[in-house]
């Protein structure tokens, strides 16, 4: 894909996304509403359109939507389990924690995929992403229970990696 068409694609995606958000928030169809939305979407696209994530045409692939629909309940299950886990640790009289910062490796390469992986890690059992350096993730873990690097990677990253690869790459 040439540089020029890539830039155009980013700007168009940014414009459409902002206009859709505007229409959803206004929730009323009238030519004045649409005109104002187009005006502001054009201003914002001119400012930040070039920073919008590339390769947005992937959104149109229904298979990715299918995997995203699987990912959402899967993620919510782990999210609620994480909250119960942390809540028990908080109200337990001894506060049973064994915290520390560990380093794990991921196989994902896309920027967007890595960002979503980091967000998912932060919202799931006892882990919080502190930094990403290339393929290395530095993760604060509230309860380190194993010294084995393989097991750690499987427990922190392995849950989400296959699905996220199918959605974003």
């Amino acid at each position, binding site marked *: 894909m040439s540089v020029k068409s890539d830039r155009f694609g980013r700007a168009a995606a940014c414009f459409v996304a902002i206009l859709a958000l505007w229409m959803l928030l206004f929730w009323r169809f009238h030519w004045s509403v649409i005109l104002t939305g187009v005006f502001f979407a054009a201003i914002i696209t001119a400012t930040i359109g070039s920073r919008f994530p590339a390769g947005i045409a992937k959104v149109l692939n229904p298979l990715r939507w299918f995997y995203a629909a699987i990912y959402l309940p899967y993620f919510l299950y782990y999210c609620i389990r994480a909250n119960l886990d*942390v809540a028990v640790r908080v*109200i337990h009289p001894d506060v049973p924690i*064994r*915290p520390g910062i*560990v380093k794990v490796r991921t196989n994902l390469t896309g920027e967007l995929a890595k960002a979503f992986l980091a967000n998912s890690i932060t*919202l799931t059992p006892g882990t*919080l992403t502190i930094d990403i350096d290339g393929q290395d993730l*530095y993760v*604060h873990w509230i309860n*380190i229970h194993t010294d084995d690097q393989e097991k750690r990677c499987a427990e922190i990253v392995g849950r989400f990696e296959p699905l996220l690869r199918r959605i974003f790459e």
Partner: protein
Amino acid sequence: MLETIACWLFGIGLAFDVLGCIGLVRLPDVYNRAQASTKCVTLGTAMLLVATALFGVGGNWAMFVKAIICALFLLLTSPVGAHAICRGAYISGVPLAREVSVEDAFVDRARTIRAEHRKQAADIQEAEREKT
């Protein structure tokens, strides 16, 4: 039926909120506090928003859409904020709680980042000096 579900969601969300705030007070260092409070309060508030959205089903679709969009924004922004604060805290030199922590793999990387920042600041100062 929908209202009953919404009321239960509201109650559970409130419970998570208050547990997160208790974690903020009870746990030993910044990183643990950020963990407990971010996870619990984010999910709790997202549940409150979804409950509010369920009250809008049928009559008030504008409220439904707004509440769902707000919940999505919250779920996307809150972990990023926690990550930024923890990274900032580590680089500014706040240590892990010594009594309970067992491992720290971030020391070397943090040293590199600090050196980079110092170099950037020095470059900017240099450029300004040349300008005047």
